[in-house]
Structures are given as structure tokens and as C-alpha cells.
């Protein structure tokens, strides 16, 4: 399986659901950025839900890539929501000293999709 194939990218309603594997190697992590940004522009979605529920560790390289990807998605006019971080991963990443910038985080992919749906409804009512 190639690095890019290890990442699942599917369109759910108006967002892209990007699911990372449990223990991605560096080339898989590097592929995240390109896969996510390419799909953003091809699918005309308004944001990205990054599902980290399978992820077993978040080291400084992985965290930096996630933060950078969220920033790039922001530059393209989209929003990133990080979903499903495990308690052990949250504890360890904090002790290591990594942060994900100002990226929004929620407990589950369900929450993330609800949030994305609500924001779209808000936008429509404003028009």
C-alpha cells in the first residue's frame, strides 16, 4: 500500500473526511498535505474533518504537519476540524510539548460533521 493510499479521503455532505491510519510513517504523513489540499479544490467542499481516532501517537513531525495542513486549508478558504484524538495521544502530545495551532478539535467524527452542518446552515440563513 502506498503512502497516499493509507490515508482515506471521502466526501461526506459538504466536507471531506480524512482518516489517518494508526501508525503512519513519515511519507504517509507527508502525503496528508497534498491529498487533503488536492481533494479540497477538486471537490469544492467547505472544510476538512481530520479523523485521528486510529492514531496511536502524535510526534512533533506529525503535529507540525497537521497544524500546517490546517493553515493551508484556511488559506484556501476552508476550515479544519480535528476529531477523535485518543486520551493517551492527547496526554503524550501535551507532555512532549506539541500544539496544533488554533485548529478546532472535537471528540468524535459525528460531532465534527454536526458542527460542519450547523455552520453551513448558519451561512445559508445569513444570505
Amino acid at each position, binding site marked *: 500500500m502506498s503512502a497516499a493510499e493509507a490515508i482515506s479521503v471521502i466526501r461526506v455532505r459538504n466536507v471531506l473526511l480524512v482518516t489517518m491510519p494508526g501508525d503512519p*510513517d513519515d511519507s504517509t504523513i507527508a502525503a496528508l498535505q497534498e491529498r487533503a489540499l488536492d481533494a479540497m479544490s477538486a471537490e469544492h467542499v467547505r472544510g476538512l474533518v481530520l479523523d485521528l481516532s486510529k492514531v496511536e*501517537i502524535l*510526534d*512533533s513531525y506529525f503535529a507540525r504537519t497537521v497544524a500546517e495542513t490546517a493553515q493551508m486549508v484556511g488559506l484556501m478558504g476552508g476550515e479544519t476540524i480535528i476529531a477523535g484524538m485518543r486520551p*493517551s495521544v492527547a496526554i503524550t502530545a501535551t507532555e512532549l510539548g506539541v500544539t496544533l495551532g488554533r485548529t478546532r478539535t472535537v471528540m468524535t467524527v459525528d460531532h465534527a460533521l454536526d458542527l460542519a452542518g450547523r455552520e453551513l446552515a448558519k451561512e445559508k440563513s445569513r444570505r
Partner: protein
Amino acid sequence: MNIQDRGEVKIETEADIALARRAVREVAAKMGFGITETARIVTAVSELGRNVHKYAGSGVMRWCTLRNGENAGLELRFEDYGPGIDDVNEALREGYSTGGGLGMGLPGAKRLMDQLDIQSAPGHGTTVTVRKWRRL
């Protein structure tokens, strides 16, 4: 202190960092470390393994399990023959980096593990040894 079991993983490519993580995850699980302790150990492996690859190009991670009275320990030794570290104390300082990284590898690994020791001299490579203990 008795050495119970040992092994090694060569770190020559970026993919080897993932192999080192997997090997240590397996040993830690066998030793009975919990989920969060295992995540700490494996994260430290990732940071230290990446340092070997980034600064020295290649090296080796040697692991062994230790026994000290009522405590079981996991020792991980990262050896490389790279340029070495000029100032070990400086390298352990938060945010200090010569490699364009975030400078959290060494201080971060120190926080995640129970013990960290660095042997290094310019031109003679670097050996970083970390240990994690668990009460039996």
C-alpha cells in the same frame, strides 16, 4: 540490574523510524506497560529516531529490558556516528534546534521518559539512552 531481553533496529531511512516504533510498541506491550505509558515510550522513540536520521543520516536503536528488584525497565539506546553535539546542555534546552525542527525532540523525550542520558562529542557521534520503569 539484570538484562532480560534485547534487540536492535537499524535506522537508515525515514521508514525505519516507523519500524523502530513498532518494535518498541511490541516490547512495551509484552512488558505490561499501559496504553498511555506505551504512547509516551513510542513517542520518545519517534523523536529520538528522527534525530538520528536527521542529524547523523543513520544509526541504530538498541533496546533491552531490565530488572531492578521490584521494577521492570525498558532501556532504549540511540547510537549514531554523526557530527555529535557541541553543547549537550544547550541541546536539552526547550526550543533549541540546529536542524530546522521545533527543538522539542530531546527535552520532549526527557519529559516522556523516566531517565535520559546523552553521551556526545563533536566528531564522535551521539548516544542517547532513555529508560522507563514500571513497578511489578
